[in-house]
């Protein structure tokens, strides 16, 4: 047994940390989050040059062919720097949907371009009901004469406004189960497709509403077989959930680091505040939250890479734990900083808001605890 990272992974970590310190410092994050895109072409190109946009894609499609455990390292560093932009949506949602569900031709067409930074694909799966699971997919795709007509609304779609194409989950057969969910790949500008950017509490994450009114497309827009889209979508979501957990771990670690540094230098009543047990003990609790978050996230990543039977359970354990932990750590960070922690000027609110948004992305702790309960047959 070896529950640690290898030399290549440690190298990836130090490379990524330096890269984001240089290319995506807090000033850059703040500048980009104020723009509708949330990313600059320059930074996106540099991410592509590092090979990180294709990190987990097979080498046959110009990817690096690495696993989730490797991705975890990169995501931790991205979370540490609260990197804004569509990495998550393009690489891990839209791109992975093509990896999991796409035909050989679709993979060849899209994945090398995503890896090179030339194209971005978003994933539209949730709806205004905010219901997770296959029952939440109610947008209809009616087949007639070989053509599909899609109507309905998708919500909480990451970066649809800057994507070159959208993967849309729709129902080709009525019902509430997994059967009958299909995935379609719609290029930007398809007639009847309307994308609206929504104001978000976490400005580094861009969410959209996507309205489809009688969008008519041919069967070549299908990603995978008709009616069989839920299984690949669930695989994408499990992977993206673990990547998100890793990003949250990186953010939580950074909040702890900032808080400890501050507690060492900030004086009150003639002593550093970190010497008071009221501060020290809360910092100790933060450490426990951070370390535990990493442990379960690393395990879930390994379990998915190895395809072990309990991988979905590990994913839900991770998301349940990390959702609560990051929220607690980010809140404690603000509290221990006092007034300065509540200012716009200090970076803590970037992490606090990222923690809150991430908590409800791919299901919150309550949702995943129930999934754990089901998977262990409580």
């Amino acid at each position: 047994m070896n529950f640690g990272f290898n030399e290549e992974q440690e190298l990836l970590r130090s490379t990524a940390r330096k890269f984001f310190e240089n290319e995506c410092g807090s000033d850059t994050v703040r500048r980009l989050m104020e723009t509708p895109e949330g990313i600059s072409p320059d930074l996106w190109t540099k991410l592509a040059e590092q090979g990180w946009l294709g990190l987990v894609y097979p080498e046959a499609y110009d990817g690096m062919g690495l696993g989730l455990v490797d991705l975890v390292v990169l995501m931790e560093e991205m979370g540490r720097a609260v990197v804004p932009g569509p990495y998550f949506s393009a690489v891990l949602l839209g791109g992975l949907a093509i990896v999991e569900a796409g035909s050989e031709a679709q993979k060849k067409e899209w994945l090398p371009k995503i890896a090179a930074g030339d194209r971005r694909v978003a994933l539209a799966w949730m709806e205004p009901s905010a219901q997770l699971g296959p029952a939440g997919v109610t947008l209809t795709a009616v087949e007639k004469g070989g053509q599909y007509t899609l109507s309905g609304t998708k919500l909480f779609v990451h970066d649809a406004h800057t994507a070159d194409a959208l993967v849309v989950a729709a129902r080709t057969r009525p019902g509430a189960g997994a059967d009958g969910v299909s995935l379609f790949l719609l290029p930007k500008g398809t007639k009847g497709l309307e994308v609206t950017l929504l104001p978000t509490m976490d400005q580094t994450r861009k969410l959209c509403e996507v309205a489809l009114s009688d969008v008519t497309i041919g069967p070549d827009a299908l990603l995978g077989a008709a009616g069989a889209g839920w299984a690949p979508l669930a695989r994408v979501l499990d992977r993206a959930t673990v990547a998100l957990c890793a990003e949250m771990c990186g953010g939580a670690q950074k909040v702890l680091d900032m808080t400890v540094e501050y507690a060492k230098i900030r004086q009150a009543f003639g002593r550093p505040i970190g010497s008071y047990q009221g501060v020290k003990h809360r910092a100790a609790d933060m450490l426990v939250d951070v370390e535990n978050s990493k442990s379960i996230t690393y395990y879930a990543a390994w379990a998915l890479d190895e395809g072990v039977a309990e991988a979905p359970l590990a994913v839900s354990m991770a998301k349940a734990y990390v959702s609560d932990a990051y929220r607690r750590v980010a809140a404690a960070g603000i509290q221990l900083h006092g007034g300065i922690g509540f200012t716009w000027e200090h970076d803590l609110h970037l992490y606090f808001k990222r923690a809150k948004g991430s908590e409800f992305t791919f299901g919150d702790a309550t949702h995943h605890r129930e999934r754990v309960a089901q998977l262990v047959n409580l």
Partner: protein
Amino acid sequence: MDFTLTPEQESFRGEVRAWLSKQMRQEWVARLSKGSDIPRPEAYELLRRWQGQLHEAGFVGLTWPKEAGGRGLTFMEEMILQQEMALSKAPPVLNILAIGMAGPTIVAYGTDEQKRRYPPKMLSCEEIWCQGYSEPNAGSDLASLQTRAVKDGDHYVVNGQKVWTSLAHIADYMMLLARTDPSAPKHKGITYFLLDMKSPGVTVKPLKQMTGDAEFNEVYFDNVRVHESQILGGLDNGWAVGLTTLMYERLALGFGLQVRLRIALDGLVDMARATKKNGVPVTQDPVMRQKLAQMWIDTEVFKYTGARAITKLLKGELPGPEASAGKMMWVDGHQRVQELAMEIQGAFSQLTHGSAWAVADGLWQHTFLRSRANSIEGGTTEIQRNIIGERVLGLPKG
């Protein structure tokens, strides 16, 4: 990153599993499956025999060097053993203070004679050990201890008192910290003795706890004579030796604790399945499902945080202050399991041993009460947070 076992480790697992399936005592399994643990006092003789059996089979002191009677294996085998014992609900090792603490400290600091004399009988459970650290005025602030040892020829004469001494009433030896140089600063001038509990002048008084049991004791020393050959690690060097013991304590606890938490949780889930409220099993109640699932998650998280610590040990790093986090997690987890057990039982949680209405003959009531000590014994949660704050995070001392 790799969680798979080597063929040798798989084979070791098979060896343990096969042995346990033949030797496990069914009366234990039956009782453990009803409650989460068994009150220790009623089980000492049974536990003594059990450790003897484990020892004969070569399953005690796996990580000890062969010269000390161990098997010279790694922490990986130790973890496998603990896991298998948990899965089969095997009884714990009685002489845990010797196996987890006194033994490794003697191996690290002992004279050849001490290393030859003591470890074998620790393993076989022929000699049980207790730990003479805490005093009425030296608990968390251990270095304030006042028990004196004054030189008299080639002996030391010990006077003073220890408290919260687990197993002292059945122990043959004690790891004794006593002050040999009262003029030195408080961390200096302490010496670590290996004390024969049958020495004249040693009085053990059971200390009745809030559970009604007497697991702990007060130990009084009235002109107890200890030969200087019983000093471990040198005169006035007891603080360093004692800290080594504490380091091993958290390590030993770390391996055992996840297993104990798992056993407790399994018992809790079984009870929740069997308990109906408003006509449906507790496990179908949405609020209780959330709580049970969170316990399940926390127990697994604890396991993987432990696995990361073991990975460091396997790479040759010494156990560090991070072990304090493991102790805190266990305490929090176990106390919540016990609270949840009471919540599941509801009104029945008021009834205890002796009532036909009591759930599992009141075993949970006992473990619930006992769990309050978890956040005090082995270093309070407050002290663990200080250790994490100061030695892991580098925050200034108060």
